[in-house]
């Protein structure tokens, strides 16, 4: 590759040189192979498949919501069930789809990108995955319980989620506890792996941005998941043991719930976006065939976002009756987050500038990520302006905002990652034409769904309502059409992944000519065991 920048850190090696092998000792077969596996690649695959399943289930719930909202009036479902659908959609997508997908990617790619033979704590890794099916079976089972599933929104504000909640809420609390334990254990594992198992010679500032963002994300997880566990435990006590943490009649404070929830909740939204930044920062240089611009500033920006994320939680509570000083503090701190986030976007564009760009499916999703995430960032900046938030708060404008950062943000980055690494996982390239179809259908669907929500929100439509007044009808109809288009095109994604596992154009070890990270030195598909002998890593100058 004549056009390649001189960035070869590694002597390209054969599988033997980097210690790849498929041979191993006696292993359980069939289902027990998956139940008992301690291999980071197999566990990564389990996480990704689980996340895909949850994405489909959460998607069906979203389509129930959009079908009901297709036109004014109550046609398909009753308000009680509608509220269960919005709640379950949010919970499943956040805790069941996006977070496990990123953990799955970390499982697969962190060891490969740092030259480690596996995760640092393989048995713990197995345990943290298998907690998830337990947690989500429990959560989904609430749908068939008397009184129905949780119906108070994914933010489950007290006292709607305590005194006024359906009996199934206790199961919901238990399932969040289990999912939370899974996240914390996963985060500990990732930190231990990154800090201890890097290839000899690889400094922290030599790691890929994906590894860096995950390291920072893992610290966020460890910091805030216990807060979530605390707040749901307080709910548990209020519901079952007569305490009054959030019950004003007993001396408690419903607003305390919101402070605790958002102290978890705001870092949580960065947990769902920082790894996405990492993925995009790896993919764009590959297909621009140019080193990432401003590597160090990217790392510092990620760290600043993570630190700031602890200081902005009450911007979710601007209309709850905060004192003026608090409003001002949280407005300023929230606006400040735009600075490091802007730096990231500028760096991506500077990476593209004077590159040698091609548009493989992974790159298409990464570019869409940069554009649409930035749009989500703009609406986020608008929402940060506290006086204006008195109008935006709890409307579809907010729904538009966070879906822009989560769907064409987090989820597009996950799809970009899947298209980028599928050749490494399966040894085959995903079907090009179908992948392009999937991209274009997704991007049109996603914008058709969420862009009109900006308008319906500004025009005055509150979120979480099953029926609306007539002036919002057109916007909702467009959103619903877009949602079905987006939802159905994800079936194509499933087909593409399935086909890619079964066969397709063979991929070499270095599946993309501009890819420079360690994972591309092991064969495709990556053998079960890689880097049994640490690779020789030669740092580049930054």
């Amino acid at each position: 590759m004549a056009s390649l920048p001189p960035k070869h850190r590694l002597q390209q090696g054969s599988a033997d040189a980097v210690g790849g092998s498929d041979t191993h000792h006696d292993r359980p077969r069939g289902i027990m192979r998956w139940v008992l596996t301690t291999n980071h690649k197999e566990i990564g695959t389990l996480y990704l498949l689980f996340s895909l399943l949850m994405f489909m289930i959460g998607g069906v719930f979203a389509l129930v919501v959009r079908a009901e909202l297709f036109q004014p009036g109550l046609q398909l479902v009753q308000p009680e069930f509608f509220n269960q659908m919005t709640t379950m959609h949010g919970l499943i997508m956040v805790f069941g789809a996006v977070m496990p997908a990123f953990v799955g990617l970390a499982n697969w790619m962190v060891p490969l990108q740092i030259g480690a033979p596996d995760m640092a704590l393989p048995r713990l890794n197995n345990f943290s995955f298998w907690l998830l099916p337990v947690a989500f079976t429990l959560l989904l089972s609430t749908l068939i319980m008397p009184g129905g599933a949780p119906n108070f929104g994914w933010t489950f504000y007290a006292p709607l989620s305590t005194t006024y909640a359906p009996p199934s809420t206790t199961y919901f609390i238990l399932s969040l506890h289990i999912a939370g334990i899974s996240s914390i254990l996963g985060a500990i594992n990732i930190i231990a792996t990154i800090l201890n198992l890097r290839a000899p010679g690889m400094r922290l500032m030599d790691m890929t941005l994906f590894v860096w963002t995950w390291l920072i994300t893992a610290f966020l997880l460890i910091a805030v998941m216990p807060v979530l566990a605390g707040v749901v435990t307080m709910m548990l006590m209020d519901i079952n043991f007569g305490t009054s943490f959030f019950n004003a009649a007993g001396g408690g404070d419903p607003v305390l719930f919101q402070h605790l929830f958002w102290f978890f909740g705001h870092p949580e939204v960065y947990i769902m976006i920082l790894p996405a930044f990492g993925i995009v920062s790896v993919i764009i240089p590959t297909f621009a065939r140019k080193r990432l611009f401003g590597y160090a500033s990217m790392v510092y920006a990620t760290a600043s976002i993570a630190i700031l994320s602890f200081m902005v939680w009450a911007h979710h509570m601007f209309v709850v009756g905060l004192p003026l000083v608090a409003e001002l503090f949280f407005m300023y701190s929230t606006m400040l987050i735009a600075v490091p986030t802007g730096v990231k976007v500028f760096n991506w564009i500077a990476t593209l500038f004077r590159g040698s760009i091609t548009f493989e499916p992974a790159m298409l999703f990464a570019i869409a990520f940069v554009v649409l995430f930035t749009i989500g960032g703009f609406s986020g900046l608008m929402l940060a302006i506290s006086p204006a938030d008195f109008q935006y708060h709890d409307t579809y404008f907010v729904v538009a905002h966070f879906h822009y950062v989560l769907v064409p943000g987090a989820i597009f980055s996950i799809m970009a990652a899947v298209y980028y690494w599928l050749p490494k996982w399966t040894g085959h390239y995903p079907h090009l034409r179908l992948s392009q179809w999937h991209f274009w259908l997704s991007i049109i669907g996603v914008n058709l769904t969420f862009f009109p929500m900006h308008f319906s929100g500004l025009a005055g439509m509150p979120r979480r309502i099953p029926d609306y007044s007539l002036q919002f009808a057109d916007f909702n109809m467009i959103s619903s059409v877009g949602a079905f288009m987006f939802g159905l095109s994800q079936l194509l994604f499933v087909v593409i992944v399935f086909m890619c596992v079964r066969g397709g154009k063979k991929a070499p070890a270095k599946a993309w000519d501009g890819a420079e990270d360690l994972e591309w030195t092991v064969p495709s598909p990556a053998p079960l065991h890689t880097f049994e002998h640490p690779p020789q890593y030669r740092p580049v100058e930054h």
Partner: protein
Amino acid sequence: MRKRHVWMTAGMLLAALSSHTLAAEWNMPIGVTDVSREIYSLHMTIFWICVVIGVVVFGAMFYSLFRYRRSKGAEAAHFHEHTMVEVIWTAVPLLILVGMAIPATATLKKMYDASEADLDVMITGQQWRWHYSYLGEDVEFTSNLGTPREQITGDGERSEHYLLEVDEPLVLPVGKKVRLLLTSDDVIHSWWVPDLAVKQDAVPSFVNENWVRINEPGIYRGQCAELCGKDHAFMPVVVEAVEPEAFEAWLAERKAAAEAEASGVDREWALDELMERGEQVYGSICASCHQPDGSGLPPSFPALAGNQALMDDSALHIDTVVNGVAGTAMPAFSTTLNPVELAAVITYERNAWGNDTGEAIQPADIAEMMAE
């Protein structure tokens, strides 16, 4: 020549788009208070700042994507950092943000100054209606959804203000500073009228403060903005702003009506009379949970039809309605309904849907019980 044509078309498109964007159904309303105008102008300022940044950023991005395609023979450059550039694109956004924060701070300070109000109104959220009380004026009432249930579940014609209409609007005087005190009897609600740029959470057992000075008479519609249970979509807010003289007249009329209602407590009511009144009250207050046919939505909302425990024990029935049931969704109605309404609705529940106890609960008895 052709290039110019393209630019003109693009310009016209942009103009058309922006005038469309400013149309009322597409954008935040400018509203009818000084604060709402300031908020609107903040909103448009930050919006246009975002548009300009967007044009620059996406322009640079798409230029790079088109200009440096490998298919057009682009070869990658080797640069990968530049400290000065990094400093500039950290500092410039920071300055823009400071410029934005200054007017936002000024507006926020104004919004927080609820002092020296001409009138105080207490707004209480209840699942799923608003209760308004004019403090110091002895006038209070409940404002329920005005749209008939058939319109919501049926396929028929829907009224112009479908779901944004109430039986009794909040009447406020134009040009006066009205302080709004918000609280809730059950879960958190949020009282929102876009034209007044007031959105404030109503939190149980806490009182929040906001204020409004309406500049133009008119009817302004909004709704609850915080998820508050199954009928969250069905608790609209309607504010009718009238001239101060008309407001005084309205207030006097309400006071007279309240006195007339109070005198009804002392007389003996016939069963039919109570049933008729009770059916109205039940329809607007109770039916959303316990259902129009009394079947309820177990387990959250028990059935009333054939509820033997209640029918056998009228004291328990009265206590349940008047004082509520702690730890459940059943609120105390002693503050929402007057003794006549309470007696009527309890009588109705004891005689409708085949309950047929034949008992007429008298307003005087309820009043006596509440006095104790």
